[in-house]
């Protein structure tokens, strides 16, 4: 066995660069794969588990001003197992000068361990939340002091809020603002994610009583205010559970509860367990999806580079192998040496990547707390790991078997005698641009060796283009998501809640900031479509709907989203029964439109259409304004919010959007960083082999009078040409297929259509970044030319 030890030692010494490169690539790829799978699996399990533990129903209905009898009515509906009522107060709020678009939900929380009055058990509707400190670490369950509030960590990214800041809750129009000091954070499994604009706040019993008193004591009696008023309202979450024996589907169950009770009259919004889970996991799933897709690209690159490197190593060592064969070693035993080295290195990279994925996942989970709102408890995905590792072993095994197969076929004498090298294509050699012509000729002479570089560039540019397109679509301020989630484009929305609101004056002020170019009205009302609870987006001008297929709707028609179409099996031309406020009317589906709000669970109606089933004269209308200069919208919003009460002013954004945009931009940055690392490794491995293959010619050029700089430039230009070709292929592939690919993924999140255009981040940047990174790394790598004399280079070639 001594001979094997010597041979392995010699091979490892000779191929140290390739081996180190392969190890790094496998390590990074496996680390990315396992981190993505671990965070995905742990997140899903943890959030679903927390929803279960905290008592989210098969579906949960948020109600306001709802009589107690409704809960009893629901209990009597066929198929209902039980109902849990979680009381809350709806109230608008302001943090650090920013107003929320949605009401906050103030929930009473008691530390039962510190409160002996209830013997440590929780009363109906109370749930045991988990608490976090500002750094995202769990802290013991606190006793909530009077005047303090606990919030979701996701508000940190939306409102830049921290412990010690105060939150102003609007309870009544006159003298009805109460401030509570942020004392800490808690995990809200129902609406904690920054993807959900609804946010809950934990307060103590004493504060709840005081807040309700303030609201009830207001002159107009705001506690019983009209639906849609932003001022305080008594409300609750109805967590409704299916009977264990029920055979109803989720949709049928929801329909049954809503149609057999008066619940729709008091409903603010309704979400099924899967919908909330999807919302809660949306950001981490996007992140994991990116990471997993990127890992797949990295793994493919890893195989390309390793395959090329192994072929080159075998080609270079062919004569040595032949000599070993003449000494009596079999092809299988020589192959075993290579199999052992490369298999061992792959295994080491896989093991290290797998092990390190745990701390990396934990760090990632902690870093995502301000976006996901929850500190995901990371658990090793045992079964998934088993499947992935088996897959990797099979892949690496098959790869090595195929790649080392050539060793068996080496005939000793033939290999010792034969020369190597490809016959170059005839390309121009001219005096002008001589360095370029030399680069082209050498490239053509060794074109087979550059194929892997071309493929890697194509793959990286394709993937970065896809990511870049999504980034460009998202926009610097999240405009893409704003448009996808909003019913219709607008810069500013103002919704008055009483007759005293001076709308003409408000419009004059908006005009002062920037001329109003267009205006229309929007109402968002709860309705049922064929018995299925959804939101009707009603527009005064239906031309503002983002229609994807078919036509805009008139008074007898409705628009539906892809989500509704799939959920209810509807097509354009179908007739649907829409109910609201106790009235039912039939409408024809005129088209499919885009609005991802509620994960796409909504329909579009005209004002004339909605008037058949609802009252269009209440304070349901929000006036939308499109400004000549949209950049002033935040200033206008702030001024109006500070100056007028009884109105809701918002832009086409939501509080958590900043966090989402930051996260997405961060992800894109990390992906570029990992891509740069991979390019560096790929260059080191590929350039090393190419350098060796071309050493002789370069030495000859040098002996003829070309300088080191000329040769380095020529060597780098070869990569530049190949990478540019690969990058072009990648860019074209992205142009042809990225939109449809992303579109299919986006549909899963209720975004019906994705279209991108040629942009800096989606097209130019990936091409330029990959090409220049390759060029730069090759330029640096080729610096070794300076350190070697011509004679040394020539003698290397002779070897």
């Amino acid at each position: 066995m001594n001979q094997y030890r010597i041979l392995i030692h010699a091979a490892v010494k000779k191929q140290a660069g390739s081996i180190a490169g392969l190890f790094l690539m496998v390590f990074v790829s496996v680390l990315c794969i396992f981190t993505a799978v671990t965070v995905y699996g742990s997140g899903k399990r943890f959030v679903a588990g927390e929803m279960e533990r905290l008592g989210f129903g098969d579906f949960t209905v948020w109600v306001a001003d709802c009589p107690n009898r409704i809960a009893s009515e629901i209990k009597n509906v066929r198929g209902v197992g039980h109902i849990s009522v979680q009381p809350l107060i709806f109230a608008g709020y302001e943090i650090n000068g920013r107003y929320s678009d949605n009401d906050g939900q103030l929930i009473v929380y008691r530390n039962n361990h510190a409160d002996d009055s209830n013997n440590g058990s929780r009363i109906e509707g109370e749930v045991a939340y988990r608490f976090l400190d500002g750094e995202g670490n769990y802290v013991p369950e606190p006793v909530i002091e009077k005047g303090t509030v606990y919030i979701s960590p996701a508000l940190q990214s939306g409102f830049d809020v921290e412990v010690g800041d105060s939150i102003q809750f609007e309870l009544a129009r006159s003298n009805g603002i109460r401030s509570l000091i942020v004392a800490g954070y808690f995990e809200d499994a129902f609406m904690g994610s920054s993807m959900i604009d609804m946010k809950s706040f934990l307060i103590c019993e004493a504060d709840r009583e005081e807040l309700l008193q303030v609201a009830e004591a207001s002159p107009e009696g705001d506690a019983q205010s009209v639906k849609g008023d932003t001022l305080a309202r008594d409300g609750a979450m109805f967590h409704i559970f299916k009977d264990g024996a029920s055979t109803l589907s989720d949709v049928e169950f929801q329909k049954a509860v809503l149609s057999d009770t008066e619940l729709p009259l008091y409903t603010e919004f309704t979400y099924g367990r899967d919908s909330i889970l999807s919302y809660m996991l949306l950001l981490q799933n996007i992140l994991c999806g990116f990471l997993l897709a990127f890992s797949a690209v990295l793994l493919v690159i890893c195989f390309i580079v390793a395959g090329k490197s192994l072929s080159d190593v075998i080609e270079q060592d062919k004569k040595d192998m032949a000599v070993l064969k003449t000494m009596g070693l079999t092809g299988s035993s020589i192959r075993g040496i290579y199999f052992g080295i490369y298999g061992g290195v792959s295994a080491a990279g896989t093991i290290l990547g797998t092990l390190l994925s745990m701390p990396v996942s934990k760090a990632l989970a902690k870093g995502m707390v301000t976006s996901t709102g929850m500190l995901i408890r990371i658990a090793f995905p045992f079964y998934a790991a088993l499947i992935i590792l088996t897959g990797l072993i099979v892949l690496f095994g098959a790869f090595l078997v195929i790649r080392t197969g050539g060793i068996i076929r080496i005939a000793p004498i033939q290999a010792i005698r034969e020369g190597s090298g490809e016959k170059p294509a005839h390309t121009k050699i001219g005096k002008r641009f001589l360095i370029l012509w030399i680069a082209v000729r050498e490239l053509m002479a060794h074109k087979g060796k550059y194929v892997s570089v071309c493929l890697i560039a194509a793959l990286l540019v394709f993937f970065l283009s896809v990511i870049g397109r999504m980034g460009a679509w998202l926009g610097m301020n999240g405009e893409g998501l704003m448009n996808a989630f909003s019913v219709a484009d607008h810069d500013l929305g103002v919704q008055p809640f009483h007759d005293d609101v001076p709308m003409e004056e408000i419009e004059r002020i908006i005009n002062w900031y920037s001329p109003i170019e267009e205006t229309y009205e929007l109402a968002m009302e709860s309705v049922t479509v064929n018995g299925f609870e959804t939101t009707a987006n009603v527009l005064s001008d239906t031309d503002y709907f983002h229609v994807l297929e078919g036509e805009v709707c008139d008074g007898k028609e409705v628009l539906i989203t892809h989500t509704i179409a799939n959920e209810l099996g509807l097509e354009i031309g179908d007739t649907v029964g829409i109910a609201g406020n106790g009235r039912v009317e039939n409408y024809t589906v005129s088209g499919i439109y885009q609005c991802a709000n509620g994960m796409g669970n909504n329909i579009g109606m005209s004002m004339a259409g909605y008037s058949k089933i609802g009252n269009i004269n209440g304070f349901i209308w929000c006036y939308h304004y499109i400004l000549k200069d949209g950049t002033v919208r935040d200033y206008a919003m702030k001024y109006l919010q500070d100056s007028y009460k009884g109105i809701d002013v918002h832009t086409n954004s939501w509080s958590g959007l900043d966090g989402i945009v930051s996260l997405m931009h961060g992800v894109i940055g990390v992906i570029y960083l990992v891509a740069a690392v991979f390019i560096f490794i790929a260059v080191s491995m590929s350039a090393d082999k190419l350098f060796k293959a071309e050493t002789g010619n370069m030495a000859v050029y040098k002996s003829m009078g070309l300088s080191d700089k000329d040769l380095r430039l020529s060597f780098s230009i070869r990569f530049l040409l190949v990478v540019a070709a690969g990058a072009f292929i990648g860019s074209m592939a992205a142009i042809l297929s990225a939109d449809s690919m992303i579109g299919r993924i986006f549909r899963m999140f209720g975004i019906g259509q994705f279209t991108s255009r040629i942009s800096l981040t989606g097209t130019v940047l990936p091409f330029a970044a990959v090409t220049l990174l390759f060029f730069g790394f090759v330029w640096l790598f080729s610096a070794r030319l300076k350190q070697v004399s011509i004679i040394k280079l020539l003698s290397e070639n002779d070897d």
Partner: protein
Amino acid sequence: MKELLLSREKVKRNFGENSVLQGIDLSIYAGDFTVVMGSSGSGKSTLLYALSGMDTVSSGKVVYQGRDITALSEKELAHLRAGEFGFVFQRMHLVSSLSLYENIVIAGYISNKGTEEEIREKADKLVERMNLSGAEKRLPSEASGGEAQRAAIARAVISSPQILFADEPTGALNKANTLEVLDLFSALNREGQSVVLVTHDKEAALRGNRILYLEDGMVVGELELTPYDGKDRKREEQLNRWLEDRGW
């Protein structure tokens, strides 16, 4: 009085702890056909590489036309190799991806002496003179050893160098090709080309008019001969005796 082209002052070249050249002083004159002889390992190739700026020296100076080339920058050295020096290797070392013709013409381009047209014309003439007509489009791997070496000589002289260096240029050739290549060197020298040739072949050495003998990194002998003019028994005997005295 011969014009001094190149001189070496106390040049040393060490490889690790081994000293291959031990403080050599010598001069190369214009128009000479200088032959460096010596047994294997005597340092003759190392001397040639150091003289031609192909390799560095450990200490001492190599002065070319008044300039110490050991102190030149890499760019200046490259310029020197491109325009002032020509080099012929024992193993040809042609660019494997270029045809024989391209190997010749590209050296002209690099030297940048003349327009592209002029360089091509010169290359065409050299192809004819080196008896490469018909073989010029072959790749080095497709050419015979003699063709490749003749192309290497043409490549070395296309830039009209001041000195043509040759390291065992016939070492890898058969007898017929050896003769052909040596005749080319002699013809070039007759036309005024200064040649410095390293060899351990007496036939090759006979072409020179100045023979240096190297032993353990030191010049231990120098022989002046009349210029080569075909087969001359007297010159041959003179060289043989001189070599015998050195234990050849």
